[in-house]
Structure formats: C-alpha cells, structure tokens
C-alpha cells in the first residue's frame, strides 16, 4: 500500500520474505501430557480476514503463537506461500502480532513504539512510516505520549499501528478487543475491518466472542480441544452447524437426541422429544441411527393450538417469558423434559399474553432444522477424545472458503448444504 511508502528495507539477518496463503499442515502442539493443538490443518487465503473462534483452552491462542513463532509446533509445518517457516524465530517471520494485553513498550513514546519494527529492519524513514501508521489509526495527536498515559482503546489502536507499520504478510490479533467495553469494542470491530480492507493484509483474529468473529471475519474456524470443529463463512456456519458444539458455541441452538426412523423423499424422519420431525438429508451429517436434532431459537414459532401441516411441531410448556425490547424470549420445556428457547420478534399489535405454565405448540420449517451426531456433546466435554466422535467428524484438513458471497462451504465434502436457503 502506498501509505506505507516504498519497500526499500534492508532485510533483517535471517528474515524470510514470504508471500501467499498461510498454510498449517498436521500441526500438533503438546505441553507435557496435554495436547493443546491436535493435528491441525488449514489454509488461509492471502488477504482474507480469518477468525479462530473457541472457548478458552481450545488451542486457538497456541495456534496463533505458533504462527508468530513464539511457540514451536511439536509436529507439523507452518508455511506462507511456499516458504516453510517452521522452526524459524519470531523476528525472522513476515508476521506481526497484536497482543491481547497490547504489550506496548512502556519506556518508549507512542511514535517510538510504532517505529520499533521498521528501525529493526533498517528502514531509513522509520519515523515517517510510524507517523503514517499512526495516522491510519487516528492516533497522530498522541505520538509523543508514553503508553501509560493512554486509555485502553488508544493503546489498542497503537498496538495495531505498531504491527501494521511493518506490512506483515500475516497480521495476528490475539483477542485484541477483549479488554475494551462493549461500545468501544463494536467501534473497534468496524475500525479493524476498515483497516483490513484498506491495507489488504491477511488478518488472523483469535476470539472467544462469536458475535465478534461473525461480524468481522470472511471465514470462521470454530476450535474445540485443539481441533477445528467446523470452518466456513459465518452465515453458513450459523445456518448449518455440523456438530452440537458448533451449534451451541456459534449462537444458541435447541437440541434434542432422537433416532432416524426412515426417509420421506429428501427428508429424514426423526423421532425426537416425543414427536416426529423432518430434517432435509442435506442438512444432516447423520443419516441413520442415533441423531441429535437441532433448530435455532429464532426459527421457532409459538402457537396456541396445534398447527396443521407437515408435522414439524412439538408440544411444550412455557417456563419463563422475558421481554428484551425488540424481541421476547421464551423458555419452554418440551415433552422430553429438555428446555428450549424461542425468540419472537414483537411484531404483533397485541402484547404477548403467554405466561409461565401455559401449554403451547412450537412450529418451524423443516428447512431450518439440522442434524448432528449424538454423543458429540459428551465427546466435547470429555478431556480424552472419544474415538467414535473422532470418526464421526473427521479432522479438519480443509481449505478455507473466502468467496465472501455467503455461499462458501467450509468442508467441501457436502455440496448439498449450499442449496439450502438461510
């Protein structure tokens, strides 16, 4: 990008120029007996905004640190383009990190903080580059201050500028917005997305905030227990989760364990929660035997009487009603005793008349239902990986789809999924 001036830097000794997609193949990281990252394979196309989403301890930060060179993988390789970076030191990689705690140098001014990288690389006009980068994050007016004199949000911008100024091939963001309050976080999400579009670098964003991941990223990879559970465009992931972990980590899902009893055209017929429902075959990763049925709370409608029709309905009892302004959230118990959630937008002129204890019927379109393997919940909760679960959901060796049109499919193994409207 022109804002960063010419590419006239003397390369640091050992520095590896590398261009292209970031590729991880069979990357495993063990700390003693604990496997933090388990045989991870993924490819992030150059210039995309990629989010690694998962709960704490799922291995996402370890993955990031291995890309940065701050940790070395126990097994596997890390490449950018055709350049193998495995084993190289952090200062030899065309990769920069925005640390969770920002990690600004406390003894240097903001300007010197940002100029640190260019200076180490022998850039003649390091100061000018730093000024330009500070302008990009709108922090020029505070260039002479020390980090301790800045607020969290300001420090965060400086941390981004300090990494961006180096024009890294890959920019790593380790939960950079975690310490900010909600309003500032939303603002910075938009800002980061703008900067990424402006500079066109590959951004890898680690976060446990599913909303943040969905808002910002072209591709989201949901990680759990050191493995990628599912990867793809946020809309696709939300619409069609392939494991119950993804169904519950990315948004909320109403799940019920059942059994496939037959097929009806393109649909699976499933006995669940004391009723019979249908799931399109293309929306289920299981086609016979035990299955976990799922449907998103906002896709479910509440009816006073049993609806006529295809039979995607279940009887339930209202447990709790909470008014949230734009919507009303109902908690209901279905026949099997499981609690489901239903979100209903407050569209009716008449106010909601349902009260806890009322008997209702829940209805949804079969195209919104999905099926995932059972036991996955237990497998996800267990510390030792269940071999059956591993069989059911093969380890991710996937190529991220970043076509950006919302129809990309993470796995590439289930093309039917694309046909389903969301």
């Amino acid at each position: 990008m022109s804002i960063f001036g010419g590419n006239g830097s003397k390369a640091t000794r050992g520095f590896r120029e590398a261009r292209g997609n970031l590729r991880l193949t069979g990357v495993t990281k063990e700390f003693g007996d604990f496997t933090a990252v388990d045989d991870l394979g993924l490819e992030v196309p150059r210039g995309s905004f990629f989010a690694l989403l998962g709960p704490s301890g799922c291995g996402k930060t370890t993955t990031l640190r291995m890309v940065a060179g701050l940790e070395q993988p126990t097994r596997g390789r890390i490449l950018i383009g055709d350049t193998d970076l495995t084993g190289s030191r952090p200062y030899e990689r065309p990769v920069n990190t925005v640390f969770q705690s920002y990690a600004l140098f406390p003894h240097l001014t903001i300007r010197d903080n940002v100029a640190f990288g260019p200076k180490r690389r022998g850039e003649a006009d390091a100061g000018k580059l730093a000024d330009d980068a500070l302008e990009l994050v709108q922090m020029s007016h505070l260039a002479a201050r020390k980090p301790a004199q800045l607020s969290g949000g300001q420090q965060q911008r400086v941390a981004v500028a300090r990494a961006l100024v180096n024009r890294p091939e890959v920019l790593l963001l380790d939960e950079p917005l975690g310490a900010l309050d909600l309003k500032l976080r939303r603002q910075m999400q938009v800002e980061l997305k703008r900067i990424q579009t402006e500079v066109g670098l590959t951004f890898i964003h680690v976060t446990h905030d599913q909303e943040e991941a969905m808002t910002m990223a072209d591709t989201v990879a949901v990680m759990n227990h050191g493995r990628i559970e599912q990867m793809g465009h946020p809309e696709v992931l939300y619409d069609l989760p392939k494991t119950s972990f993804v169904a519950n980590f990315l948004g909320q899902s109403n799940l019920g364990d059942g059994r496939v009893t037959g097929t009806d055209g393109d649909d699976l017929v499933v006995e669940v929660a004391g009723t019979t429902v249908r799931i399109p075959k293309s929306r289920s990763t299981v086609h016979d035997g035990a299955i976990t049925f799922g449907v998103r709370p906002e896709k479910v409608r509440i009816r006073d009487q049993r609806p006529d029709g295809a039979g995607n309905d279940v009887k339930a009892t209202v447990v709790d009603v909470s008014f949230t302004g734009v919507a009303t959230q109902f908690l209901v118990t279905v026949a099997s005793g499981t609690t489901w959630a239903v979100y209903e937008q407050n569209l009716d002129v008449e106010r909601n008349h349902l009260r806890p204890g009322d008997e209702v019927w829940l209805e949804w379109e079969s195209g919104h239902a999905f099926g995932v393997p059972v036991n996955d919940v237990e497998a996800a909760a267990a510390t030792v990986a269940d071999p059956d679960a591993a069989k059911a959901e093969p380890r991710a060796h996937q190529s991220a789809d970043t076509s950006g049109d919302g129809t990309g499919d993470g796995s590439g193994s289930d093309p039917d999924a694309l046909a389903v409207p969301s």
Partner: protein
Amino acid sequence: MTVASAHVAGGGTTHADPAPAGGARKRSWTAYLLLLPGGLWLLLFFVIPLVQLFTVSLQSGFPGYPGYYYRDVNIGNYGTALTEFAGHFGRSLLYAGLATFFAFILAYPLAYAMAFKAGKWRNVMMICVIAPFFTSFILRTIAWRQILADDGPVASTLKFLHLLPGGHITETWMAVVAGLTYNFLPFMVLPIYASLERADARVIEAGGDLYANGFTTFRTVTLPMSMPGVIAGTLLTFIPAAGDYVNADLLGSDRSTKMVGNVIESQFFKVLGGFPVAAALSFTLMALILAMVFLYIRRFGTEELL
C-alpha cells in the same frame, strides 16, 4: 461526605452545618497524624544529629587543651579534610565504583535467571541471595579473610597460574573491592530482580515479534525496562560502599587501602582533638555522594525515581 460539604460551601450558606466541617478537618488531620511518628523519628535521629555534626565540623580546638573545643566557624577543618585526605576520598569513590560495577555484572545475570529461567528454583535462589543476612556482616567479612588468605584456595590457585604478581590478595585493594562487592551484592540483585519480574513477558516477546533478535530485544526492551531496578541497585550499593570502613579495615592494609570511613573512624575514636575534622570529612563525603547521585540520576534516571 465531600460532595455534600462542597455543595454547602458552593451554595454560599454562611452558617454551614458544623458536622461536615468537623469531618473535613478530621480527615485533613489524619494525614498529619500518620506522618507524625516518622517525622519525629527523622527529626530526632536524623535532622538534629546532622545539625549537631555540622556545628562540630566548624568547631576549633582549644589551644593547649587537646580534646576541648569551642563554637566557631572554622572552615579550615574542611580544608584539612580535602587536602590531607584527598587520597582517601579518591580511594573510597574508586573502590565503591568498582564494587558497584562488579556487583552489577554479577547481579544482572543472576536476577535475570531468577526472573525468567529459574522456574521452580526461583524461591531457592531467592533464599540463597538473602540467606547471608542471617549471619553477622562482620563475621562474613572475617570469613573472607580466610578465603582470600595467602595460603587460601583463591590466592594459591592464582599464584600457581602466575596471575598474582604481588603474591597477596588480602592487604590489597582487590580484597577490599571483593569484600564490598560481596557484601552489597544482594542490594543490587533484589531491585533488579523486582523490576525484571514485574516486566510483562509479552512486552519482551513483542520485541522478538517486531524483528529484534535476542540480543537486540535485551538491549532495546528488557534492559531499559529494568532501568529503575538497575538505578536503585547501583545507588543502594554505591552509597553505603563509599562510606564503608569495615571491609577496608578487615581485608585491606593499614597503609595503602584506607577509605574515608576508616579515617573518620580513627579521627573520631583514635585521634585526640580529631572531632571537627572527622565531622568535616563526614559532611564532605555526604556532599560528594549527593552530587554524584544527582548527576547520575539526571543522566540515567527514569520518571519513577525523579
């Protein structure tokens, strides 16, 4: 409470409720009450003796009555202190400087290892640094006389290697500097360790992430971040070392390695009529150290110290 009383005052009420006023007064008194014991201590045991010492340094001896003095403004005592004992001042500052330098060279790697590499051994190392304090300072210094003695392991090894031309370590400046270095080492280690331990490991990682190799990261990130500790450590070593007389007394020679502390001691206790000169020596040493420390902090100091 504060808000309420401010509101009353702001409202221009002339007959304000006495309760908040009393509360405010009580609060402002608390600070002074808390300062009182420390302040009294400083006044009784620091300010008054210092003034007393200063008046002594200007006294003159009664002619013909050694050991008797009268109140005077005798600047000559300072002249004597500076001319007759210039060598001792020079030696004090040189030995203290050398000891500070060697203590820094030894302490920094040790503190670094404790802060970043020791892992579960950190507490053991900490105890090893502090443990000598459980024994008397004098006793430990006398022990060094055995270690550095002519027939001791250090001197014999160096003699065998032909690295000790004089044949002695004790009775030379080497023993004095070694003793000073040893005795003040913990005062160097602990502040440096504290500042390194406080340093955010992520900040040091950031140095590597931003293209600085190990040595450059140390030079541009780790060392500057530990400067408050380095400055505190060097001051805590240099200041007492410059005024020390035990090491020179026990490990040095009677002629060539005397420091200012030894002269002050002998002027006070051994030379009849030496009180004013001893006091002048003490004041001159204090002024010299203050001036050097001031210049040092001006040059290397951080905001935390100034």
